[in-house]
């Protein structure tokens, strides 16, 4: 079922998506967009793992191990995103901005 050429294409795509996400993450200042970049980057990593699962001749079932890893990875990434969003909101929360720097003379 697997068409030859698919894994090669997808591995390159995976690398590209990872690099796009990470580069944007480094260069963008907006916290919110940095979170999105991180998620894009993780998409690249997951893609590579899933490609690994479907290597080889087309008549065999995919390797379940990388698929399970990706499932775990996705949940972890969701948790990370959630915490990052909570922090970003806190950082941008204007109500918190007045009670800082207690030590400045």
């Amino acid at each position, binding site marked *: 079922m697997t068409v030859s050429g698919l894994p090669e294409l997808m591995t390159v795509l995976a690398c590209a998506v*990872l690099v796009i996400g990470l580069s944007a993450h480094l260069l963008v200042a907006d916290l919110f967009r940095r979170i999105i970049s991180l998620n894009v980057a993780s998409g690249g990593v997951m893609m590579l793992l899933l490609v690994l699962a479907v290597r080889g001749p087309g008549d065999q079932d995919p390797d379940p191990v*990388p698929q399970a890893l990706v499932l775990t990875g996705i949940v972890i990434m969701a*948790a990370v995103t959630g*915490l990052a969003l909570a*922090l970003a909101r806190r*950082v941008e929360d204007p109500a918190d*901005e007045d009670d800082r720097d207690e*030590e400045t003379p």
Partner: protein
Amino acid sequence: MSGLVPGLLPGLLPVPVFLPLIAAALAALLPARARAWLGLATVACTAVVVTAITAGVAGLPGRGSGEDALSLALAGWEAPVGIVLRADALSAVLLLLTSVVGLVVSVHALAAGRDADALPSMSSLYGGPAFWPLWLALFAALNGVYVTGDLFNAYVMLELLTLAAVSLVALGGRAGNGAAAAALRYLFVAVVGSLLFLMAVALVYAEAGTLDLPLAAERIGPGPLLHVALALALVGLAAKFALFPLHSWLPVAHPAAPAAVSALLSGLVIKAALFLLWRLWGILGPVAEPVVLQGLGLAAGAAGSIAVLWGSFMALRRRRLKPIIAYSTVAQVGYLVLLLPLTAGPVGADAFGAGEGSGPGWTGGVVLVLAHGLAKAGMFLAAGNLALAYRGDRLRGLGGAVTHMPLTVATIGLAGVSLAGLPPSLGFAAKWQLLTSALAGGQWWWVPVLLLGGLLTVAYTALMVRATFNQPGGPDAEPPARRLPRTLVLGPFVLAAGSVLLGVAPAGLLEFLGSGTGDVTAGAGDAPGAAGDVPPSGAAGGDGS
């Protein structure tokens, strides 16, 4: 003991992970006071288990016999299907460090929490009741990293560690949004590091078809895939332990956290990523082409050298305790990375491992981790105490502390002695080993870094200690704004003093490590001499001439 080893002891390996996790989940549902006691009891119990594991590792036949680690296949599945936990001497030592520092920090947080009812600012020492479940999860993750033998499991553990650590940093919410911003910055870097590490794991799996680390080393061959994987792991993990130039989050995040959390972060958390890097280097490294490995090691060593100098330089320019100590961590991380080139053998040697002295290098690095863990945790806790007592950690406001809080100032001084590698501290033992390793391997260019870094460490320690002397011309000695309970003062001192005193007779520790980290150093032996025929001590010279 040896009769017990095969049966019962490996079964203890998951306990340091599961026990704190259970406690973390329960603590989140309990009232504040109960959390503290539950947390302390858990850490204490875990420490007992860890001690048993260490004893078990020490009771193993050792390197020569090929049996140098306790191992346990979880869920009944051996590698490659299942996840195998492993604990060798390196794991055991780091587990012990985690438990010891964790115990002191727990006592610290408990004591601070007890007084927080009367004095709310006490909670700024540890971050309030939310500290406990998060710290227990962090504890579990640290232990988990040290006993895992599985690459993906290591990734999951790192993420658990990261999220717990980031949440703990955010507890330092005292200074407005500073802590949240610092925590987010930390999270970003850590997750980028995790993704790179996961990519490396995927690449290893692509070729080896297994996630079990030792098995992967057997199945993988030298080639671009392995080399790229090692490079990715190096960069990814380096971001997590803040190696220059990926360090910029650390001086922001570590000081922003509550003091107890800073102690955990600097003393323990960065060690986890470092441990993994060492593990990869030790197990997968020998498979790689020596030239590539040395190149990576050299790059890491160069970054480490800059880190030592830059971190120290920046520490000298800070004017507050916690940023100084945080930059000191940046510098110390540089030392810890020097291990990679030191153990990668002399440049140009024929085969990996040919370098004499890689043994001392490994043990030296591990001992340095211990010294740094104890000392830095003590230093951060002491700095937190000073900041609480004197309402802020600005150096200018600390005059007179040496008279009124001598033990706390002594803590900083002693910790500095160990960090600087001055005798008779544990740091000195480490530095001795590293120097021996560098000279033996002909890599003399690391020597100035090792030596200069020590001097700079003394310089910024002295900067902190000096600030606590009475200001001339001013009023005699300013009494502290608040008096601290004895427990809060003693804990950090115990850590710092331990970091010094352990160096008085580190032979047992060094031998234990020498017998256990043998994956790479096999054959290097302990004999440091190039002359080979080292006379046993006591027989040198003589009267016969």
